[in-house]
């Protein structure tokens, strides 16, 4: 088989890189997002086809077989996964990408003759391994295979420091000598560091860590491009690393947190650690029928969805309730906090799945002034995003985070599973206010009962 001319190859890689840039650009706006993603996929196809026709490759049938296996596993999973489980799937895909980069670097080490190429090798190994192990832990946290609370133990900072020191030592030795055994050790240390990095992160901050690890994998891929002398990998990896860094900061800013605070907060005595204590202050709990009366005779209702809605898969019931209320002449909107749920935009995706009209989904800035005119704010499985402590309590871990001003509504109804605090682990004073009513139970069950009662009004 004659191979493509190197210049043609370079042009095709350039085209793929441009497609990736256009893809990220397209993902900036709801109108062009889907097309952007398809452009990115097309760029990937161009790049993969190009590599087969431009490089002298052995084992092609085996490689094609491996590609079939990889797609055969990933595509159906990605197609069938439930909306609530999407964040952990993204974490998983990110992790395997980091793992692949680390393996590529490991195998290229014997061919790396220059010291600076070996610098790129050790970088890819370490960062890829951190990303792989970190993503695995985030997956376990989001899938609730382990506790979603920060895991901290006394020796953690010391251990982390020791692991990083050892990693730096091993990395230096690999750069100088190119030892494969030490490279394996480095890989191992990277895995341990990845686990230690993510363990102390609390549930609500996990999405930000996914984004950070995503940026890490991008950097690892870029470094692997330096190892292989492949410009496309350098450009694509750097793009993801840079955009991922910006995105991580934007997500953290939307939560009023700093990235350093999220990663090291628990080290310093736990800003996210909080307490799981259940308060015994009196609250006003109520029946589905009472809630139905409140809602059914209101002029204006604003529904505030949170993770509880996603967990209970209650989005369709919430949409039905909104429809039932609107047919009675009540105006219903959904107030979407940027970080409600497990990922920014999680609620939009979830409610869109339930066919809630786009115009009813209001962003925080748009809806906050409207709570004043609302008769009822119905908070479904959300807590921290409506907690006034973010404005009033300077020492609170969520202090400074913008919140939905549900306290301005005439009545506030919380649908909650229990009095347990939210992910930030702090109590919500709003629940003890006289205008607040609580309805305990699974979000979907509560919504179904309220819906039935509204229909019976």
């Amino acid at each position, binding site marked *: 088989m004659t191979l493509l001319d190197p210049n043609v190859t370079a042009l095709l890689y350039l085209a793929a890189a441009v497609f990736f840039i256009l893809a990220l650009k397209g993902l900036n706006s709801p109108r062009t997002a889907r097309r952007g993603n398809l452009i990115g996929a097309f760029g990937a196809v161009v790049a993969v086809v190009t*590599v087969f026709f431009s490089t002298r490759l052995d084992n092609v049938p085996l490689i094609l077989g491996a590609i079939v296996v990889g797609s055969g596993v990933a595509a159906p999973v990605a197609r069938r996964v439930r909306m609530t489980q999407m964040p952990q799937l993204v974490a998983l895909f*990110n992790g395997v*990408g980091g793992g692949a980069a680390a393996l590529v670097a490991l195998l290229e080490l014997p061919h790396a003759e220059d010291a600076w190429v070996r610098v790129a090798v050790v970088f890819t190994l370490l960062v890829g391994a951190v990303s792989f192990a970190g993503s695995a832990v985030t997956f376990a946290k989001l899938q609730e295979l382990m506790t979603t609370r920060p895991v901290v133990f006394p020796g953690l900072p010391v251990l982390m420091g020791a692991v990083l020191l050892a990693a730096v030592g091993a990395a230096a030795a690999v750069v100088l000598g190119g030892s494969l055994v030490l490279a394996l050790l480095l890989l191992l240390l990277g895995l341990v560091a990845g686990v230690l990095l993510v363990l102390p992160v609390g549930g609500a901050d996990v999405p930000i860590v996914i984004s950070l690890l995503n940026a890490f994998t991008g950097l690892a891929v870029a470094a692997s491009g330096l190892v292989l002398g492949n410009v496309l990998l350098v450009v694509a990896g750097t793009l993801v690393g840079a955009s991922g860094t910006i995105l991580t900061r934007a997500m953290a800013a939307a939560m009023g947190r700093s990235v350093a605070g999220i990663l090291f907060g628990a080290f310093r005595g736990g800003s996210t650690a909080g307490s799981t204590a259940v308060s015994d202050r009196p609250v006003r709990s109520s029946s589905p029928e009472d809630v139905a009366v409140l809602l059914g005779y209101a002029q204006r209702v604003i529904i505030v969805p949170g993770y509880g809605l996603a967990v209970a898969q209650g989005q369709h019931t919430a949409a039905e309730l909104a429809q039932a209320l609107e047919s009675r002449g009540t105006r219903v909107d959904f107030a979407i906090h940027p970080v409600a749920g497990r990922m920014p935009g999680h609620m939009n995706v979830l409610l869109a799945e339930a066919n809630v009209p786009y115009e009813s989904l209001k962003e925080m800035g748009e809806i906050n002034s409207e709570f004043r005119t609302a008769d009822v704010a119905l908070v479904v499985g959300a807590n921290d995003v409506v907690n006034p402590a973010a404005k009033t309590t300077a020492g609170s871990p969520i202090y400074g985070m913008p919140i939905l001003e549900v306290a301005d509504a005439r009545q506030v109804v919380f649908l909650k599973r229990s009095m347990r605090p939210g992910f930030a682990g702090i109590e919500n004073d709003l629940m003890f206010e006289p205008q607040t009513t609580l309805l305990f139970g699974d979000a979907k069950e509560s919504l179904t009962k309220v819906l039935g009662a509204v229909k019976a009004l």
Partner: protein
Amino acid sequence: MDGISLLTITVLAVFVGFEVVSKVSSTLHTPLMSGANAIHGIILVGAIIVAGQATHPWVLAVALLAVVLATANLVGGFVVTDRMLEMFRGRKPDKPAKPGAKPGAGDTRGETKENTEATR
């Protein structure tokens, strides 16, 4: 390619990466992260090169594992992003048939589901 050229390209790509996402609304943070996640699956190209040049069976085995992992990242990443974004369309009831949408099993299913929901 020499080191300086690669460094130049890297630095310029950093700025493009910063620029391209600097004004995105929080609604799209998740799909954007997921799309970027899919793009770094292009490490598949590296995995293919390593696997194609492997001579030792162990090296080949590890390289093929990397190919499987990278493919999962690339294919799964784009599919899951598409599914997220699928949810964002079909908002306006009077919207004509969407241009550029692939006809396929997944699409039809989405359509049917939407119709059932609408008739409820």
